[in-house]
């Protein structure tokens, strides 16, 4: 299990190098979240990601452990960006390795759903009209119901 917080840029190869290359691995599923140029109809110029450093790693570890208890995964990595990001930047990367694909897909999906509602990150967007903190989406909370 591997947790990364990137303050300056995102290094996906570094995350992948940390993962087990155990010969039992038959499936690798990953999710990469990027910064979009438009959110809720507004053009986003820049994004600032605040977080609670003392709590972030612990919560991400708990989420990875929870996924490992639910599915027979062989390794899990969760990486998240903090600080200032621009359009196209990677904001989050999750990778799960397991023997079979469905476990890797499901664990990856679960991790993202839980991360969106539990991990202590806060986004602040800059638009032509100024800056504002992003409000949580009801759909993110509802997504948890399927687990």
């Amino acid at each position, binding site marked *: 299990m591997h947790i990364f917080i990137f303050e300056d840029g995102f290094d996906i190869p570094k995350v992948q190098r940390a993962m087990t290359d155990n010969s039992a691995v038959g499936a690798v599923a990953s999710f990469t979240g990027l910064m979009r140029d438009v959110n809720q109809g507004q053009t986003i110029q820049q994004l600032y990601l605040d977080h609670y450093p003392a709590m972030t790693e612990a919560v991400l570890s708990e989420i990875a452990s929870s996924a490992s208890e639910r599915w027979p995964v062989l390794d899990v990595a969760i990486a998240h960006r903090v600080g200032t990001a621009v359009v196209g930047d990677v904001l989050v990367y999750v990778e799960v390795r397991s023997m079979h694909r469905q476990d890797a897909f499901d664990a990856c999906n679960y991790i993202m759903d839980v*991360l969106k509602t539990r991990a202590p990150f806060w986004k602040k967007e800059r638009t032509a009209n100024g800056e504002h903190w992003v409000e949580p989406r009801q759909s993110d909370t509802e997504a948890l119901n399927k687990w």
Partner: protein
Amino acid sequence: MRILFFGRLSDELGRREMHVDVDASSINALLLHVCETLGRDAAASLYCDDVSVAVDQTLQADRDAAVLAGAKEVAFFPPVTGG
């Protein structure tokens, strides 16, 4: 005790952290002291229904429970929006 504010609260309160020296046993008792120090606008922000509280990095749902004995850090924050 170190008090931390994240997300929109850091902007609304104009600070990310403060230190208090108060003998409060519950979060609500601590809030009274913090709001006395920061003023009425701070109360509107900190008593907002969607604000969560973590004591030494553990979320606390009961603001009247005696959870502050020996606590070093209390954090207030709005709903998370990462990912």
